[in-house]
């Protein structure tokens, strides 16, 4: 509960901070402070003494899973702020409002990771989506940004429609929105539940940009201001995943076998399309959009397997993927030229950026000793343990190999190709932050259970 309330309040605080103070630095610091408070609140929640004692009428349930994810999400946001917040000023001149919107999104994330009824799911998803429509379009004079916003909005609300229809059908069949009630009863899917389940699945698949509902992703990520792309592609996406797995594990686990095939097909399609399409991209930004689809394909493994490892794994994957992607974007933003050529000679001219970027990319492509490997490892092992979908596992590893192709193109550009020295100003502090992030990724990669244990430490 802390997370929801604090983030909502801090959203309001940010709104006013924009009015009272003109200095961006101040606003930025307030935002960062807010995140720290938020983090503290979540930790208190996890350690079992929430600030507010509110009877949620069982509409929200704050279990370790949700709280830990909340912590991860906020932590990633913190990293994101530290690395990329200064670049938001370039987007437009109402910085405070952007921060406010981000806090509202975090509120939505908190809801989406702790909902216990479809109503809260719906609200959470909407609270996440609506600010994102705005952020996408926030670069107002840039036609691409506008276009992206409109596309995102239209398709987003379309998917909302699907979701509502799904919820309705399930309500019709089960007579309640409460997940415990819905989870009752096993046996074959009745038509209404089945239809509703599928519609819900589609709308969630849309939110996590899984094929064939991914089409908005490349355009929106490409069109949105890069800073916000970074946010959307990481925290928001994994939040949607958490909601996805929470919903389906909480409500439909008993009927898992009956929809496993569909979700497996979706996962496979996502993997293939994401990876294959990414190969040919010329713009790194767009490539990252497709790579995020590909990564989503891997996260889908958690839903396909839906076992203990999957739950741990999705949390770990969320952290690993978000951090690495944030890092890559943070460096991408600094560059003038978003194509692969933009990276040429980076290794010679900006060794630190190149080195850290390499680590982020290695992590994304799942090379051992980086967090990305253990993330993929958890997903694969979850799927293998489930045992139903070896074809998917094999496809997965092949796709992982394909993904190496486009990630390493960047590395090749940085180290093995020479480019004219471009003026990339980065503060020393920024570089140290990057190094810290890279080190943390390696730490996570070598000692993954440091994070996983958190699920059990707090009661």
């Amino acid at each position, binding site marked *: 509960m802390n997370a929801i309330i604090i983030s909502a309040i801090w959203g309001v605080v940010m709104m006013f901070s924009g009015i009272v103070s003109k200095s961006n630095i101040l606003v930025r610091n307030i935002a960062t402070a807010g995140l720290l408070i938020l983090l503290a609140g979540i930790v208190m929640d996890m350690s079992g003494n929430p600030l507010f004692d509110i009877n949620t009428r069982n509409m929200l349930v704050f279990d370790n899973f949700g709280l830990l994810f909340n912590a991860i999400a906020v932590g990633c946001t913190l990293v994101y702020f530290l690395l990329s917040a200064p670049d938001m000023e370039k987007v437009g001149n109402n910085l405070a409002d952007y921060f406010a919107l981000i806090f509202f999104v975090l509120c939505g994330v908190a809801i989406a990771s702790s909902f216990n009824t479809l109503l809260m799911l719906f609200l959470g998803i909407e609270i996440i989506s609506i600010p994102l429509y705005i952020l996408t*379009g926030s670069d*107002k*004079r840039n036609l691409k940004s*506008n*276009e992206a916003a*409109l596309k995102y909005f239209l398709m987003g609300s*379309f998917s909302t429609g699907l979701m*509502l229809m799904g919820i309705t059908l399930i309500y019709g069949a089960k007579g309640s929105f409460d997940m415990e009630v819905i989870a009752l009863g096993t046996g074959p899917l009745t038509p209404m539940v089945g239809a509703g389940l599928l519609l819900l699945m589609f709308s969630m698949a849309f939110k996590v940009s899984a094929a064939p509902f991914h089409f908005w992703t490349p355009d929106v990520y490409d069109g949105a201001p890069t800073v916000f792309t970074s946010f959307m592609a990481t925290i928001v996406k994994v939040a949607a995943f958490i909601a996805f797995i929470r919903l389906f594990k909480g409500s439909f686990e008993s009927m898992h076998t009956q929809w496993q095939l569909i979700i497996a097909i979706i996962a496979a399609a996502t993997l293939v399309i994401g990876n294959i399409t990414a190969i040919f991209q010329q713009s790194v930004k767009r490539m990252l959009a497709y790579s995020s689809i590909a990564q989503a394909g891997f996260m889908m493994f958690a839903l396909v397997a839906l076992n203990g490892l999957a739950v741990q794994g999705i949390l770990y994957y969320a952290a690993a993927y978000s951090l690495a992607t944030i890092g890559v974007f943070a460096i991408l933003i600094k560059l003038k030229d978003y194509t692969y050529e933009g990276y040429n000679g980076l290794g010679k001219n900006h060794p630190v950026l190149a080195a850290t970027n390499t680590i982020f990319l290695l992590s994304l492509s799942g090379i051992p000793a980086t967090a990305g490997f253990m993330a993929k490892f958890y997903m694969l092992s979850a799927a293998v343990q489930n045992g139903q979908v070896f074809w998917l596992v094999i496809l997965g590893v092949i796709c992982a190999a394909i993904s190496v192709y486009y990630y390493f193109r960047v590395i090749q550009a940085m180290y093995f190709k020479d480019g004219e020295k471009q003026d990339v100003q980065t503060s020393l502090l920024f570089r140290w932050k990057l190094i810290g992030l890279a080190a943390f990724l390696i730490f996570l990669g070598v000692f993954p259970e440091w994070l996983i244990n958190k699920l059990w430490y707090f009661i």
Partner: protein
Amino acid sequence: MKIEYYIFLSIALFCIGIAGVLTRRNAIIVFMCIELMLNSVNLLLVAFSKMHNVAQATVSPNAGIEGQLFVFFIMVVAAAEVSVGLAIIVMMFRNTHSIDINFLNRLKH
């Protein structure tokens, strides 16, 4: 009235909405079609709530009320969405004097 009639009715409306989204190029019309989809959902929800009310009237008089409340929230969200959506559309129109979604193809491949 039997429930399946309502199911079919609202599914029909829903699909008309989808068809509209598929066939029209005017962003606003598309948006309206989406609104239509939402409304079909509302209708179905109300129908279900009444149905459950009938079914479980003995259990509690308020059975099935959550359906109607959900409709209320949907309307809330829809209103919010409309405000944002129209804002975006207007912004779009300001920059390119058109709301034709087919012209939205600077981003592709």
